[in-house]
């Protein structure tokens, strides 16, 4: 190319570096986050065929051992292998996080879209329901349902955590729907004789879904934390299934003797939540919104 084009390109190149550098930086952290989630999911899914100790085997090593060639991440107070327990524990965290948010997004999303589009009574009733759900001390609601039903299966835990996100989901989806409900393309579709069902399916939902998706990723992080908290209080999936929260709770009294029983599942929890937060944040930045503004 000629020298003229190079000089012409130079100013824009000089203006670019800052944004270019930040975008690149985000790229790396986001890909690292995706990488961590993929590795964790694969390990959790393939835990049965990986060369791991049985998570309940108390003879995997000396109790409260530090990382050794035999137990890569050390052992807990009963001599169980921490690597194996953390990987098996990831199953509960990932399944509960994903299933609870999918459930609350589907139910809350449907209610929110109907409330935002049909308005009037539907809107009043669903907003009131959302208010009640949000005014309820939600973590305690979850805890009491698990405690009272005395069924500490995966399904109950998923249901209970989905309930935590129902109120906010209804509100956010309704607000997003409202912002589209009277736009020109919706009015145009209506004047062409489209039924409300068709308008919701073809005009509203495709616009609302992207917003809900990026919020859902952040909500998965929250749901995983909520499961960890319930498990810490011994109100999540019952033993012998290992969960990160119950591992942390079991390791806490021995924290003066060994950090690893708390550190290993704690770090797994932290990295997973951080990865989801970073991905959600990056998506929201691209969509031009701010995570803190929810």
């Amino acid at each position: 190319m000629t020298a003229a084009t190079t000089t012409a390109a130079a100013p824009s190149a000089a203006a670019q570096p800052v944004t270019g550098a930040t975008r690149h930086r985000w790229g790396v952290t986001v890909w690292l986050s995706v990488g961590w989630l993929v590795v964790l999911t694969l390990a959790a899914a393939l835990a049965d065929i990986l060369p791991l100790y049985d998570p309940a085997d108390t003879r995997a090593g000396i109790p409260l051992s530090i990382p050794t060639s035999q137990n890569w991440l050390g052992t807990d107070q009963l001599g169980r292998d921490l690597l194996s327990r953390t990987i098996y524990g990831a199953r509960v965290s990932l399944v509960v996080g994903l299933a609870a948010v999918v459930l609350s997004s589907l139910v809350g999303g449907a209610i929110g879209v109907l409330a935002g589009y049909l308005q009037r009574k539907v809107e009043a009733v669903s907003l009131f329901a959302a208010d009640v759900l949000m005014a309820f001390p939600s973590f305690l609601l979850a805890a009491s349902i698990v405690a009272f039903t005395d069924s500490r299966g995966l399904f109950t835990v998923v249901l209970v955590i989905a309930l935590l996100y129902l109120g906010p989901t209804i509100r956010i989806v309704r607000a997003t729907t409202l912002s589209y409900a009277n736009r020109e393309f919706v009015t145009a579709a209506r004047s062409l004789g489209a039924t409300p069902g068709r308008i919701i399916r073809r005009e509203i939902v495709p616009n609302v879904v992207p917003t809900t998706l990026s919020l859902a990723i952040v909500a998965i992080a929250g749901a995983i934390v909520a499961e960890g908290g319930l498990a810490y209080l011994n109100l999540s999936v019952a033993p012998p299934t290992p969960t990160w929260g119950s591992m942390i709770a079991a390791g806490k009294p021995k924290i003066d003797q060994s950090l690893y029983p708390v550190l290993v599942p704690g770090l797994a929890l932290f990295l997973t939540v951080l990865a989801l937060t970073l991905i959600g944040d990056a998506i929201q930045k691209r969509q031009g919104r701010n995570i803190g503004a929810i």
Partner: protein
Amino acid sequence: MSRRILRLLAVLVAVTAASFSMVSLLPGDTVTAVLGERASEEDRAAAREELHLDDPLPVRYARWVGGAVTGDLGISYRTRQPVAEALGQRIGVTLELVLLSQLIALALAIPMAVLSALRPGSWLDRTLSGTQLAMLATPTFLVAIALIAIFAVKLGWFATTGYVPLGDGLFANLKSLLLPSLALALEQVALYARVLRTDLIATFDQDFIWHARAKGNSTGRIVLRHAMRPSSIGLVTLAGITLGRMIGGTVLVETIFALPGLGRFTIDAINNRDFMALQGAVVVMTVGFVVLNLVADLLHGVIDPRIRAQRMAAR
């Protein structure tokens, strides 16, 4: 405003009715929980009679509401202590914890947000934003355990658990609450700083700020006198919501640090199926949530004269 109060009252009634019926609808026998598995049939019948468990649900709810408005929240099934009295002993700890953590959160979040907003995109802004994301990603109960591991076990500066009442000296009291409130504050720091940063950046771009700058005001004066007030509405709303949330959200921290607060009380009530105690705690928390939301609403008017004018016009 009065419509909003009515609406919040309706929410209050709905929440208490829901929590009241929840325990009746869910399985698990109250009498067995109170008397144990081996109680005789006569004792069970007497207990059912005494606790009015055979009355229809609406009757029981109406009787409970009648008591509640006069400050009588019933008697704990397990300890036989009046629930209102038990709550009174616990609520102080939780309120102190929540207030202290909010003070810490604001004290950290406001300078962080201002530093970020003055130079958005700078290395400082990016470092702070990254730190805040990490704070958001650390579950509170993990922070609590990490603080215990570092400051109590490793360094030995604090007792690992336990609460020193205010009567035993202010310093000892604050010292026993410092780690728990720090643990609670961390997530709030990130949330508050992010909201305030966004609002401040928007405000800094407004004409009146450019005007103040053109007049030669120092940056510090511009931030404090001109930018802070119009930028704080988002923060006040958020703080109102979080404060309300936290009254019920301290369960884990209170459990980890063995603090005799409301959250711990509630989880004990849940585990023992102590229905009246649970119901009382739910009411206190919901009232707190509702009231704090109202206060945040009122503060909007104090901060922004336009909102005040609108309200006057609407009246």
